[in-house]
């Protein structure tokens, strides 16, 4: 903090306008944003994808993304107008007085250099200290960020630490020159909930400790509630509403803000049909491994017609592997999978067309799950002609029916390519493709986690409606407990390849919990600005009690 501004004003944007170049034209994507940020203040920017959050975040450093340009307004950082500043001036600010923490730490580190060397690079490059000083400082920061073995962890390569640790290492790197402003761009989106809370805690502590100002960009309202002093809600590059965090959460004014706030309230309203004697899918004592690494240990569960079973767990818990075993992509080393009482061959290549047809899959990333060079007609039509032998008018008719079922206008969409669809629409096409096979069982692998909350809710509602109409059974893989609450009938909690708890939703969500379920449940951020403090206090109390007991 070299120069103190009298009124504490650090960053001020006035009528900021940014253009993006698309389809041979410039489109305005940030439409006149005003923003003020004082020292030591944390501002939350929230909105759906395309709201211009990241673009504004980057603009705070005086830059525009490739294919964009700042077309109007001013960005004044500590008395310097960044829109007019030379590249050299901006370079001196970047990393030293303004730091940026990106969403994917894994993509932001150079895999060929050690963490601590990447840390010291900025410091030495900007003449803020020697390499030895930077090393010492890094170790101190690693300790403050509660990274394990702070003295040695810096000498590891990025692939040798976990995702949460990498994200903290990146935060440490951003702090290397003690910046006045830190821009956090969705820093915890890629993390598991249990890791997320640790990272959030350390980030908040560090911001308070160094009295840095921060802009926290996210689409997760519950997260921003923990971090920010005030919140700006953006949509289509325009400001919807701005207020202090508590006021914004308790009394949002605009309808759009209210709709964002209400998203997590969707609940499946119809009870699942009674269980039939023979389960639709039965996974019996299955173990599986990738090469020699075992990933699943003695898993057993049943899925009944018309039921939704949610499989919850952190990344690496084996929940997706369980799906791969059921589809036959990964033959189990032990145990068997049966469908409607009939044991399925272990490898999908040995299964009959009809067995393959019965179990369909919907993927997390709709972008990669549908071929970008196929038109919608072909994407949905292929299972129809492949499994059901439909051709010509009959097939065309069925494609249109399916499009109507997923609430897309057939005439408008049937000839499009996937690139001409939005994220939610693509996921709908994936659902239609799965439905085209006329299955009774669909595996949904994190189908909503790549989508904005409003869109995700639409998908959940659609899946729920289809379940009632077609009596489908879902296996719903997710790490998001809000989704589980919304759609499941039964829940399986997985940890390190084992099922730690399973049962009806009500049982799982009401105490007493298994220890791990408890941790998982308590780590899900809530829309209460005091939530994190409460959880920490609770955990500390528990830890204290346990220590006392010992």
């Amino acid at each position: 903090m070299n120069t103190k501004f009298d009124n504490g004003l650090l960053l001020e944007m006035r009528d900021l306008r940014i253009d993006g170049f698309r389809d041979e034209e410039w489109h305005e994507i940030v439409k006149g944003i005003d923003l003020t940020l004082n020292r030591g203040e944390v501002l939350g920017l929230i909105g759906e994808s395309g709201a211009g959050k990241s673009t504004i975040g980057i603009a705070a450093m005086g830059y525009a993304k490739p294919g964009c340009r700042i077309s109007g307004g001013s960005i004044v950082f500590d008395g310097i107008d960044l829109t007019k500043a030379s590249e050299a001036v901006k370079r001196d600010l970047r990393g030293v007085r303004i730091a940026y923490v990106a969403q994917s730490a894994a993509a932001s580190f150079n895999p060929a250099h050690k963490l601590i060397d990447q840390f010291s690079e900025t410091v030495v490059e900007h003449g803020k200290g020697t390499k030895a000083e930077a090393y010492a400082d890094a170790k101190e920061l690693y300790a403050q960020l509660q990274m394990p073995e702070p003295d040695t962890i810096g000498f590891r390569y990025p692939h040798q630490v976990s995702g949460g640790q990498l994200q903290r290492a990146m935060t440490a790197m951003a702090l290397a020159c003690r910046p006045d402003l830190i821009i956090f761009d969705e820093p915890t989106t890629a993390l598991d909930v249990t890791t997320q809370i640790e990272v959030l805690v350390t980030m908040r502590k560090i911001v308070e400790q160094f009295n840095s100002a921060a802009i926290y960009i996210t689409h997760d309202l519950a997260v921003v509630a923990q971090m920010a002093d005030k919140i700006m809600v953006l949509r289509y590059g325009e400001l919807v509403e701005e207020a202090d965090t508590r006021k914004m959460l308790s009394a949002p004014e605009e309808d759009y803000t209210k709709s964002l706030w209400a998203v997590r309230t969707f609940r499946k309203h119809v009870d699942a049909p009674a269980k039939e004697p023979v389960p639709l899918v039965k996974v019996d004592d299955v173990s599986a491994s990738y090469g020699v690494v075992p990933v699943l240990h003695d898993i057993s569960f049943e899925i009944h017609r018309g039921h939704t079973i949610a499989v919850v767990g952190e990344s690496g818990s084996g929940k997706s592997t369980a799906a791969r075993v059921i589809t036959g992509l990964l033959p189990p080393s032990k145990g068997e999978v049966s469908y409607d009482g009939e044991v399925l061959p272990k490898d999908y290549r040995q299964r009959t067309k009809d067995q393959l047809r019965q179990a369909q899959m919907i993927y997390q990333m709709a972008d990669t799950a549908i071929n970008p060079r196929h038109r919608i007609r072909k994407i949905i039509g292929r299972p129809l002609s492949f499994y059901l032998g439909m051709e010509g008018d009959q097939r065309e008719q069925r494609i249109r029916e399916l499009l109507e079922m997923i609430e897309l206008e057939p005439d408008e969409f049937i000839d499009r390519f996937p690139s001409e669809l939005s994220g939610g629409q693509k996921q709908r096409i994936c659902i239609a493709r799965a439905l085209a096979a006329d299955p009774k069982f669909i595996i949904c692998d994190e189908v909503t986690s790549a989508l904005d909350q409003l869109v995700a809710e639409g998908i959940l509602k659609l899946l729920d409606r289809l379940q009632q109409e077609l009596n489908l059974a879902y296996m719903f893989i997710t790490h998001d407990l809000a989704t589980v609450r919304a759609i499941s009938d039964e829940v399986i909690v997985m940890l390190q390849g084992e099922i730690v708890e399973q049962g009806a939703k009500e049982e799982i969500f009401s105490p007493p919990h298994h220890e791990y379920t408890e941790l998982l449940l308590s780590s899900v951020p809530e829309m209460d600005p005091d939530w994190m403090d409460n959880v920490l206090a609770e955990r500390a109390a528990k830890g204290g009690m346990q220590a006392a007991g010992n």
Partner: protein
Amino acid sequence: MTDSNSSIGQSVDAVPPPRRTETKLSIAWRELKKAPLSAKFGLLVIISYIFVAFFAPVLTPFGESEVVGPEYDVWSGEHPLGTDNLGRDMLTRLFYGARNTVGIAFITTCLCFLVGGVGGILAAAIGGWFDQISSRLVDILMAIPQLIFALLLLTIFGTAIPTLIIIIAILDSTRVFRLARAVSLNVVVMDYIEAAKLRGEGMGWITIQEVLPNIMPPLIAEFGLRFCFVFLTISALSFLGLGIQPPTADWGSMVRDNATLITYGDVTPLLPAGAIALLTVGVNFVVDWFLHKTSGLQDEH
């Protein structure tokens, strides 16, 4: 920047991009008008070569291997580029050369892509032992210097045109194999390939319908480059006497046959060489432009 997180102006669930109403032809025409000068020049060269190749008999008054005058005749009104070592009209042979050399090079390149492209995609899609065996086989073929290997094989199997085409196509397909395999590897890990496999699709569908459309841009660009190399190889072989055999007009052998003239300061033997060079440059210009368009490099504004 990937599609999934690009938030430049496109809202993930708001308004979808405008519907494409133009036909492919009008898009192509618009792109062409915006093309850089080098690409336009390249296209002009290629079109004129094709024109000459097709209409060689109409454009020239003499036959391809007809002796029409004294040997090494100078440039004159009757023979604009003089005559060659046997007294055949140079311009006529140059035109027919376009037809033969370019035609053979084109067929060879197509064959080369058929073999290498299909092999490469299959190696990526099937993987495992098939990938290992085919890739090592390609490594072995590539380890032997291509021109020497081609000379050796042509000596063994003779220099008939079909043999020439097959040998060069197979030797060159190793490069195509590698490229096709490399780009396919990025595609076969996509979920839609897994989805197709789970659907029970056969290798034929996966190769042609799922993978091929996604690797077309680099393959087309490579086609242009590969065409140049094949073309140069054929010319080199002809120059060495093992390529296209006389009396068929061919630019490589035309250089060799008239090479003596250079000693006398006559540029005539350089003309076929120049024709080769010009086409190579033209094709490369077009390929560069195409690569630039398809690789997303045009995003820098």
